[in-house]
């Protein structure tokens, strides 16, 4: 069972930690929780692994990077090996087996233009067992907000 204070702090910290001299005091002030308690909760849940990271969330494109979502059809017997090979590339941040005709989905980000992304996708397409591999670049972003209320 999550304590009330823990929920308050974790929900607020998922939304935004202010960029101020005393961010945890300021976050706590809006919740009626002390700076020390905020830090205690965040440290505890970081240690437990429920919190993966506390840091900056960036807009890839604005940092001069290009990225895409790719979907591939991989022979089932080769799926895990291909996924591991693709995941070795640091610019691949998400890689999932999904149900359906396209059974492997991953994101690719590189510094520079989309040409670099396409080149990377082309190299993945050549891996043994990959039957097809498409890039689905973004036309329009409607939402990116991960928020999991405790």
């Amino acid at each position, binding site marked *: 069972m999550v304590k009330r204070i823990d929920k308050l702090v974790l929900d607020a910290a998922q939304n935004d930690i202010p960029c101020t001299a005393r961010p945890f005091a300021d976050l706590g002030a809006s919740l009626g929780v002390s700076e020390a308690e905020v830090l205690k909760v965040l440290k505890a849940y970081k240690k437990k692994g429920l919190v993966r990271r506390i840091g900056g969330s960036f807009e890839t494109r604005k940092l001069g990077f290009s990225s895409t979502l790719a979907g591939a059809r991989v022979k089932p017997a080769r799926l895990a090996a291909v996924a591991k090979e693709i995941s070795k590339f640091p610019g691949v941040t998400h890689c999932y087996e999904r149900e359906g005709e396209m059974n492997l989905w*991953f994101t690719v980000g590189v510094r520079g233009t989309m040409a670099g992304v396409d080149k990377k996708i082309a190299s993945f397409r050549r891996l043994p067992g990959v039957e097809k591999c498409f890039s689905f670049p973004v*036309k329009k972003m409607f939402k990116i907000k991960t928020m999991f209320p405790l």
Partner: protein
Amino acid sequence: MKINPAIVRALQGDIPLEPAPFKKIAAELGLTEEKLLAALSELKSSGALRSIRAIVRHHKAGYSYNAMVAWKIPAGRAVSFGKTAAASPAISHCYERLVRPGWPYNLYTMVHGRSRAEVLKVVEGLVEKTGMKDYRVLESLREFKKTSMVYF
């Protein structure tokens, strides 16, 4: 806007969990705290920094089920569909993407829930609200990698 890669590097991992984390980061970068805070505020207003935040492992927070749902939406309806989907708290990501031969799905929604039924209910709700019925629920079967981007 000129982006200082050292600042991005300091924030792309974890910030120190102590009362004045930016003071510490500034010292490591050889900046004053004021300079760093001003740079952060500039990064935020340019949109390059969405926020400083806690990123939760959703499985551990009880959101054990997720699906990427790909929708086939007529071009003229994409924006209204996107806005309706974005309004749902259970949907974390919503994008319109290019289509490819044999893959006509142009809208993608990432749906999270505590169970398969909960996720499917969100999808059914969207169908009801928008009248769009051509979609694929791409359940995640195995996670091979999930990290944050390392930029510099």
